[in-house]
């Protein structure tokens, strides 16, 4: 086979292969949104994080503003310490409250951010004190059953 024809086909093959890899990186894995150059990290303590995982989204008003970067256990206070990496373009007041929410009935858990009214803004390394834990379904069902039993006891 002619050398030029051969080179052409192999070059086309390599180009298509590289284009396919780039397509997977950009369109399928959405690498562009992962380029988080500037983030600031804040910490928050939760009594119970439920099924929260590292890399879970941090959302404010439904918009993803950051990711959970680390989850540790504080053995002195018996609480979970969650580090959040928040995109620098989003600023929140210092009295922001965080809650662990679930997307959908059985969906993944994420951290919801509700900004406060303080003029001071959250800085890198700050600790958020206003937190509400994940709702554990079993506890909720237990509570409902307990209340029902109590009601039943009083009415009868």
């Amino acid at each position, binding site marked *: 086979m002619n050398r030029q024809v*051969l*080179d052409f*086909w*192999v070059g086309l093959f*390599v180009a298509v292969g*590289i284009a396919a890899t780039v397509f997977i990186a950009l*369109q399928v*894995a959405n*690498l562009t949104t*992962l380029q988080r150059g500037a983030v600031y990290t804040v910490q928050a303590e939760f009594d119970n994080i439920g099924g929260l995982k590292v890399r879970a989204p941090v959302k404010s008003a439904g918009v993803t503003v950051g990711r959970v970067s680390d989850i540790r256990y504080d053995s002195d206070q018996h609480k979970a310490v969650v580090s959040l990496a928040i995109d620098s373009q989003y600023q929140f007041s210092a009295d922001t409250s965080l809650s662990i929410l679930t997307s959908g009935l059985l969906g993944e858990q994420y951290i919801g951010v509700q900004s406060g009214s303080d003029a001071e803004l959250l800085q890198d390394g700050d600790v958020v004190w206003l937190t509400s834990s994940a709702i554990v379904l079993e506890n909720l069902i237990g509570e409902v059953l307990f209340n029902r039993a109590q009601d039943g006891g009083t009415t009868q």
Partner: protein
Amino acid sequence: MTSPLTLPARLIRALGHRVTDNLISLGIAARFFVALLASSAICLRRPGLVVREMYFIGVMSLVIILVSGLFVGLVLGLQMYDTLERFGSGDIVGMVVALSLVRELGPVLSALLISSRAGSAVTAEIGLMKTTEQLSAMEMMAIQPVARVVAPRFWAGVFSVPLLTSIFNVTGIFGGYLVAVHLLGVDAGTFWSQMQSAVDFRIDVVNGIIKSVFFAVTIIFIAVYQGYHATPTAEGVSLATTQTVVKSALVVLGMDFVLTAFMFRGL
């Protein structure tokens, strides 16, 4: 040794024979691999040799990769949608198709297809060269057959397989897109956004590429090894070609389990 051995003694001797046999061929394969790497410098001096082999291994495998990828994606889209719709989550079909392709089906199926399409051809070609004593003739002319014949095919395979895997993944995802969006009525925006939120570049895509590189080295090494060490008869070449396909499939599937266990254990 003429005295008739008892049955247990014969069984133990057969076992020992098998073990030493396998150890010997493992040692030969390891030495062949080192010799192959040591004589790979020719691929840099004469890249034309690698380009020629990439045509036969890569370009000629494109058709089977494109068609298989498309149909795997189509079937995956249909099947996954059918099951997911029972839980009312048919919208995440894009995510399931992309994850299963990028993580598992892409690397494994392309490796199996390429070993059948190109690996067997490489074995038959080298085996026939050995049978017709072309390899010995090269040695007579002071040309190293490992450098001139084996190394270019090996490196062409190592470069081609990951590229073919990427092409397989993209056509598969395109097939899933066709079925989900145009046949089953999933929203195109949901299809892509669900996929993008679930597929991680580092964990899923890079690990998939690492897998395909491992498979590339394995299947193409098995192919050149079987060809180079084939018994130089028509029967030997035929046996070697069969062995290439069978061993590649077994090793790829076994290796896939080990690699997956290391890569995705934490998830």
